[in-house]
């Protein structure tokens, strides 16, 4: 009787090095002797690599994956190559999509204007001119709003960069509120990850605990308020040893934080492998 196929979940655990020696040997034996099992495993391994590169693994699986597939410089190079292939394909698809839509719009529009009766052309032209002028006004308004928004963002990013400049790290900030954040998703936010907005608080000092084994020359944080599309990037952060373990300090001006749930993605940068990332969450209450 043919042996049953190992379940996908078991194969994933096997690939992440999360099975005992006996199970490992059993799966490897099937891998070499049963062609269907071989194909299933290589496909699931491929899926796992893609999940890692798309940042879709849990923090613990990422760690296990990296131990298995980022163990040697050659393995890390292989990961960078797969990432390059994927990025190239995505970029190609986007540029050909843009080219297609640019090509297809004008011929369609022009063919719609091929009216049999030329009498229609005058009202159509009038409507087009009015639409063009209205569009122009609308575009200028949007442009002004965008410029204002860009200036506001630039001011915030400058403020964030100043607050988090290496010279300011470790300095005591007056009117600051401190919060130690372990990694965790927005679902794990509890009272210990909350603070109340107060007028006397000027700066919120976060200590983002870095629990990954791998440390990096630098870190980058991306802050977003859950439900908003705006993202603020804070580069050039550095890990420090604190009483609670390794942590990356991050200072935020209190005026940019309004009531709601916030998420920070902290990624390692500047190493020879795709940087690992951790997520942190906190809530601001009135």
């Amino acid at each position, binding site marked *: 009787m043919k042996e049953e196929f190992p379940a996908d979940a078991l194969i994933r655990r096997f690939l992440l090095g999360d099975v005992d020696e006996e199970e490992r040997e059993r799966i490897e034996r099937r891998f070499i002797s049963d062609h269907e099992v*071989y194909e299933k495993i290589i496909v699931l391994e491929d899926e796992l690599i893609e999940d890692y590169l798309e940042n879709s693994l849990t923090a613990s699986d990422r760690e296990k994956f990296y131990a298995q597939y980022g163990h040697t410089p050659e393995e890390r190079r292989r990961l960078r190559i797969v990432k390059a292939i994927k990025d190239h394909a995505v970029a190609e698809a986007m540029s050909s999509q843009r080219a297609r839509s640019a090509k297809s719009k004008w011929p369609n529009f022009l063919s719609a204007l091929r009216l049999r009766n030329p009498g229609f052309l005058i009202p159509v032209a009038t409507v087009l001119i009015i639409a063009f002028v209205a569009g122009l006004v609308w575009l200028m308004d949007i442009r002004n709003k965008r410029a204002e928004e860009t200036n506001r963002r630039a001011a915030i990013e400058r403020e964030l960069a100043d607050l988090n400049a290496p010279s300011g790290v470790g300095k005591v900030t007056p009117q600051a509120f401190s919060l130690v954040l372990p990694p965790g998703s927005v679902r794990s936010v509890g009272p210990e990850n909350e603070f109340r907005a107060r007028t006397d608080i000027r700066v919120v000092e976060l200590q983002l605990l870095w629990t990954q084994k791998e440390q990096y020359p630098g870190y980058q944080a991306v802050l977003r308020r859950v439900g908003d599309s705006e993202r603020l990037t804070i580069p050039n952060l550095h890990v420090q040893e604190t009483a609670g373990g390794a942590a990356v300090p991050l200072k935020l001006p209190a005026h940019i934080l309004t009531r709601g749930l916030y998420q920070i993605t902290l990624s390692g940068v500047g190493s020879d492998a795709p940087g690992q990332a951790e997520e942190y969450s906190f809530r601001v209450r009135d």
Partner: protein
Amino acid sequence: MPQNSDAPPESFDELLAWINPDRELAAATYLDIRRALVKIFRWYHCADPEGMTDETFERVTKQVHHLRETFEGDPKHFFYGVARNLIKEYQKTVKSYVSIDDVQLAGDPPQEVDEESSEMREECLSSCLQNLTTEKRDLILAYYAREKSAKIEQRIAVAEQLGVSIETLRVRMYRLRMALEQCIERCLDELERANETD
């Protein structure tokens, strides 16, 4: 054929005959075993998976005459057993930090590979993509064109277009990507060597 083999060619014929009496099937199975062994050695982070696969074949070839008369069961299991022994030997060597001369068995400790620049990667990727047929190039670009949840629909559409199942497509794409990866690795090695000599 096993590389650097000390065994005479007739032993290799005997090995194939032991794997399968049908020579064509035996050759295909030989390649399957080879691919699987390389992968297994890689899972154990062996420094030279291809070399250790050669060594496995070498060891089995040396015993094949005897095996044909005595071994009962699937020859693949025997290959696996030999590979397991090699892995244990390798792990012992790595753990004890004893330098060895037998390059094929364990290889040198992994050399630190300097990270290539993204420009070098892009250059090699473009050149290796150009080496593929238009059909294969379009296929790999279409397969990886989307990420996360969007990729599932995209890949189903690609499979439908080719008239194959999604599983078949995934295996086909794995093989194609492996070939592309190997081409890029070779290209990067060449560029790095050229940079060193400059």
